[in-house]
């Protein structure tokens, strides 16, 4: 009896321990299966993200290497929404024929609002369901994301050389990096002073170097004190201006964009005249203008001997041209110039607000991005002296005042870059040089201390300050030289929320890639899948973007 009792007790203990161990193993196994399903779901989401980054905007017929037309993406996306999980299609993605992801995936994209089809470059939601190949365990991941554009990463970035020149001794004649990141793929050079990055109003984020980049001079203390400097694991990629235009303008090169219909709308190009009695008029060109030089600025006449629109530095009247935007412009308010050659008394007004509409009580609101594409002979240096913007606005016209939505594209080819030089001559602060009074809405433009608003992209960019100093927003180019030996240069990134250079739903926005953000949930299928969205509404007909005649 004793032996029997002992055996029973021992066997009970064994059974309990065995049960415990089996439970432990089961839990571990379930955990791994869960993780594997999650892993597959995340892989599917990345796969979908890659598909999106290779998707052209609606209306672009394709033909660009590596990209797929939106129609093709949309059809495949719709099929995945309506279909069951299946193996990922690796045929276009892997050099290895035996590289197969085990398990099944159902991954698709919907618009961020969840009520319409997604199309570039809108914000989005990706839903991905992963199925474990061994147990069939399913897990879902769902996250939101947005496009990364040309202006989202750096205030200054040079593919080759980023050069800061400053006075040898005058602390006011230096570069002030007040916000954002700077970087280079090759060389960052300082002469004399290290740029200022701290103090009141400074929020400099740091410097990011491409894999093979360095700073000059080396060996004298290494990186600037207090700078956050990291080297990327690879070269930072930037598309050429030609690639940008082909992406935005349906496969057209810069030259083709310049010759297409509706380019350089003459009714959006103005010149200022002032008669001998002081009456100011703004008239628009009657034919498309493809360069801005002496002949074009000569259209701006000033016969008033008592005019205040005079450059106090030279004593000569200003010659003033204006480029304005229109919400109905068919090519995203793109101006194409083969050459810009401005004189010391010339002012180019860039007005990013649409003309006021007298039939609307408070006029049109918002800001439209104004784009300037500089083409012409490679190696040409476009000379820009004085720029002016609206610096006063009321009501909805405040958009004109706060919106730096301007992009300069400088076309170039490797080894023979197009170039642009910004060298303001006007050094009078807050001199009102142009007043527009149209439709009962008053707004004023003046140079203030000279500013290069928005983004300058591509080519070789030189900014030379004057005694009053100069402010720039963002420059991404092959070579950048900031010369502050005559006056300070401040680099200030526009507030991306209040004053974006490109809005997130701008159909003419170039997308570098799509990225996920922090909004991320996971769970079982059905829990977070297409909430409150009737299936038929997921993929309606395309209603986004404009066809270019």
């Amino acid at each position, binding site marked *: 009896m004793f032996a029997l009792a*002992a055996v029973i007790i021992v066997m009970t203990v064994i059974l309990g321990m065995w049960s415990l161990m089996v439970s432990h193993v089961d839990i571990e196994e379930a955990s*791994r299966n869960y993780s594997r399903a999650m892993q597959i779901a995340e892989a599917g*989401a990345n796969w979908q993200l890659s598909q999106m980054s290779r998707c052209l905007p609606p209306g672009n017929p394709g033909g660009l290497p590596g990209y797929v037309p939106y129609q093709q993406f949309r059809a495949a996306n719709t099929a995945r929404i309506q279909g069951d999980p299946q193996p990922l299609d690796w045929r276009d993605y892997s050099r290895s024929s035996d590289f197969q992801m085990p398990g099944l995936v159902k991954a698709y994209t919907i618009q961020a609002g969840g009520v319409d089809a997604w199309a570039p470059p809108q914000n989005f939601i990706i839903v991905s369901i992963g199925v474990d190949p061994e147990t069939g365990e399913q897990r879902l991941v769902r*996250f939101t994301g947005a496009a990364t554009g040309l202006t989202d990463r750096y205030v200054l970035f040079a593919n080759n050389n980023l050069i800061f020149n400053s006075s040898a001794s005058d602390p006011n004649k230096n570069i002030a990096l007040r916000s954002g990141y700077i970087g280079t793929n090759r060389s960052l050079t300082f002469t004399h002073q290290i740029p200022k990055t701290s103090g009141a109003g400074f929020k400099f984020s740091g410097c990011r170097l491409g894999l093979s980049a360095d700073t000059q001079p080396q060996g004298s203390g290494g990186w600037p004190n207090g700078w956050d400097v990291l*080297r990327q694991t690879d070269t930072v990629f930037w598309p050429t201006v030609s690639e940008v235009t082909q992406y935005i303008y349906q496969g057209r090169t810069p030259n083709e964009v310049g010759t297409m219909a509706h380019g350089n709308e003459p009714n959006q190009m103005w010149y200022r005249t002032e008669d001998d009695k002081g009456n100011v008029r703004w008239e628009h060109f009657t034919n498309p203008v493809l360069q801005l030089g002496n002949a074009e600025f000569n259209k701006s006449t000033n016969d008033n001997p008592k005019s205040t629109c005079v450059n106090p530095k030279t004593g000569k009247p200003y010659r003033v041209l204006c480029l304005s935007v229109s919400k109905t412009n068919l090519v995203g308010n793109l101006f194409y110039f083969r050459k810009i050659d401005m004189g010391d008394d010339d002012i180019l007004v860039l007005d990013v607000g649409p003309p006021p509409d007298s039939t609307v009580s408070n006029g049109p609101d918002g800001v439209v991005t104004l784009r300037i594409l500089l083409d012409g002979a490679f190696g040409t240096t476009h000379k820009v002296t004085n720029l002016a913007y609206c610096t006063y606005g009321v009501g909805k016209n405040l958009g004109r005042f706060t919106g730096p939505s301007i992009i300069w594209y400088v076309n170039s080819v490797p080894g023979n870059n197009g170039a642009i030089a910004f060298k303001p001559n006007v050094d009078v602060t807050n001199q009102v040089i142009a007043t527009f009074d149209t439709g009962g809405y008053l707004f004023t433009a003046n140079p203030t201390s000279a500013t290069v608003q928005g983004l300058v992209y591509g080519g070789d960019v030189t900014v030379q300050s004057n005694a009053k100093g100069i402010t720039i927003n963002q420059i991404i180019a092959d070579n950048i030289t900031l010369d502050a030996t005559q006056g300070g240069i401040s680099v200030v990134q526009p507030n991306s929320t209040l004053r974006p250079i490109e809005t997130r739903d701008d159909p003419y926005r170039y997308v570098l890639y*799509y990225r996920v953000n922090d909004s991320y949930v996971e769970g079982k299928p059905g829990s977070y899948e297409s909430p409150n969205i009737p299936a038929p509404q997921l993929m309606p007909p395309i209603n986004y973007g404009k066809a270019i005649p």
Partner: protein
Amino acid sequence: MRPPAQTTLFRVARLPRTQQRGRRGLTLIELLVASLILAVSLMALVATWFNMLTATIDTDDRGAAYECARIVLERAHINGFTVSNYNVNIPPTLSQPGDAALSVWSSPNIARYRYFSADLSRELLASNADTVPAAPADARYLAETQVSSSPNAPHSHLSLMTVKVIVSLVRGDGSIGSELYQMQTCLALGGV
């Protein structure tokens, strides 16, 4: 010499014959059977304990292999997405220790073979050799990484990277044992 005083025990030992005859003792057979049952159950106990130990070690190994694969995968994740010439058979070397132009931050985030200690606290060896290098002492896990990228992307930064990590057990004698865990994923710039 007087006999010792009778204790209780002594009295019990000297029970009347009639009472001793009425209580039957254990036979040798019974003892053998009981011993046999006890031995079998003890053997079962030991076997079960051994199996439990083996299963626990195996479970721990598989759990560690999963963590190991995640470690390797995360390192591949931070590697970036534009390095060209990725190939399943020839993973790239991102660092060139002798090149002063490259900073110390450039580390070989993708290596074909990596050996790890049992607690994963130490990476004992990283190698891009064509064949599996000899296991260093104390190595418990071997992680093999295979990488491929899409050849058709518009630009290299838009390539979809596919990464496979295979974790195997390293035996005490340094030989490579069974495959414990295999993890595959694809990575995209801006992805998770």
